């Protein structure tokens, strides 16, 4: 019988799941390119005052309604404001809505999903039926209603979007929790005397993390669109604050004469959403053991 060497080779460190995932993600050239583009765009938005020479809010009547040119790559609007500058400044609002609402949804739905999946029974039924109930309401109308009830401002837009994203997140977390709960290592932890809280947060949560990151990435792009949709319909930010959806709503009235007013803000939203979706897809592939690198 050949001797089996059970001691791993020196220097060959056992790599964790997330190291493998990261490696697989980095090998995906499209995703890597997407990530770089997104980071560049985020930097431009973050440092908008340094990047653009124009004020996004002040009127500049002599330069109004200009088509795209070298001085104004995205043209100017009816008040003479540079649209590129407004797009960059507007990104601050849109990204804030996207990230904060998803963050809020994750913070609330993680414990809910864990509890529902782990304890089952009444807790599961109670939580999931409430989620079903939220899901039964038409998302955007619900958000519009909530914002008009609570008052039209950015914070309430964030709350409304977070609220109607709750079911998606808690369902996912519950589903994964259900499958992990039955695994042998969880049983082992229980056998060693670990309490429910400890098992939930130290043994199950790490397993939930991967799919959560994917859903969060895709969720942010969804939330950005939802936020822009609300301001497109006139809820949320007030003029003259630049915001992508509001700029589109404005440009919509000038499609015949100043097409650039609607084209560029929308193109930017599409680009950001596209990049986030590409990254999310790549993360999902990286986490999926069935997909080869």
């Amino acid at each position: 019988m050949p001797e089996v060497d059970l001691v791993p080779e020196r220097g060959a460190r056992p790599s964790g799941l997330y190291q493998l995932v990261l490696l697989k993600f980095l090998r995906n050239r499209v995703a890597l390119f997407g990530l770089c583009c997104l980071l560049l765009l985020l930097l431009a938005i973050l440092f908008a005052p340094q990047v653009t020479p124009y004020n996004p809010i002040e009127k500049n009547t002599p330069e109004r309604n200009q088509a795209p040119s070298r001085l104004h790559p995205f043209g100017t609007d009816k008040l003479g404001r540079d649209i590129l500058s407004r797009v960059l400044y507007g990104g601050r609002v849109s990204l804030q809505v996207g990230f904060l609402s998803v963050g809020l949804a994750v913070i609330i739905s993680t414990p809910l999903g864990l509890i529902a999946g782990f304890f089952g029974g009444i807790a599961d039924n109670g939580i999931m039926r409430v989620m079903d109930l939220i899901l039964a309401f038409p998302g955007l109308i619900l958000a519009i209603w909530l914002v008009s009830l609570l008052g039209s401002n950015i914070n309430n837009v964030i709350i409304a979007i977070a609220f109607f994203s709750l079911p998606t997140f808690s369902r996912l977390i519950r589903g994964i929790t259900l499958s992990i709960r039955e695994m042998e290592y969880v049983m082992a932890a229980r056998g060693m005397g670990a309490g429910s809280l400890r098992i939930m947060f130290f043994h199950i949560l790490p397993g939930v993390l991967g799919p959560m990151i994917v859903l969060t990435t895709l969720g942010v792009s969804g939330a950005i669109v939802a936020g822009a949709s609300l301001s497109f319909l006139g809820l949320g930010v007030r003029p003259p604050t630049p915001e992508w959806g509001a700029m589109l709503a404005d440009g919509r009235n000038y499609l015949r004469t100043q097409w650039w007013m609607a084209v560029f803000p929308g193109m930017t939203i599409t680009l950001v959403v596209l990049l986030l979706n590409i990254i999310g897809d790549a993360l999902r592939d990286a986490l999926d053991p069935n997909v080869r690198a």
Partner: protein
Amino acid sequence: MSQYILRRIAIAFPMILAVTTVVFVMLRVALPGDPAQIMAGDRASPEQIEIIRRKLGFDRPVVEQYLIFLRNFAGGDLGRSVKFREPVMGVIARAFPFTATLTVLSVTVGTTIGLVIGIITAVYQRTWVDNIGIVLTVFFFSIPTFWLGLMLILIFSVGLRVLPVQGTGTWRHFVLPVTTLAVGQSALIARLTRSSMIEVLSTDYVRTARAKGLARRRVLLRHALRNTLIPVITVVGLSVGGLLGGAVITESIFGLPGVGRLAIDAISNRDYPMIQGAVILVAASFVFVNLIVDIIYAFVDPRIRYA
């Protein structure tokens, strides 16, 4: 089978009851301000407000209001719209056909295109066809409806002048809104079909079918497609349910007087009976569509019935 269907129906009813209750609570209890005051307007005298309050039953205890509301709802009476000055049901019944047409057409067109793209990209996995498909679908998946709608108007109505911008007169009015919604739908279905098909193609029974010497086409369309469709059905159901009440943006861009726009207008007009009616009906139709999906599900996948 019939037991399964009955059980599903039994779950749907409390759901609709819960929806109506939530809407009631949101409108009557959680709402800041006095609805009668808001409906009467700023210049109304206290007497006028009192009349409205009495007319709408707001002067009675909340529990009694709730019971009356439920009794009326069960009888198909959702109250009178403040703005339209006629029964809410009638106003919604006029708007519903537009939304239903838009939903059915865009989901049908989008799903068909999505299925074709999904099957082709799954079959030609890891070739240039697949790559083009993936790029195209992630792009279509990412375009927000409001921008796509505006761009379609810019190209086909303003630029080429071949299609009308807004309105409802002819079938030509539906081309752009249906396209707007179908693009996203097709991308969603294509992505789902592709991954589902790839999974099915790697199963043993597909290999068996091939080993038997069946034609490739037959294996794909007869054997693999059936199981591929199972998750697709759910998503199509969710799309139908969602669009019936959620085509707000598309309806507003293209000036279609559908249910979504009705709801938005009602919210901005503070037309409470109308908001109540629209939201309840939309939510109820969502629950109903899901019920139907569950029943279809049990037909196509016998495993579900016995679970």
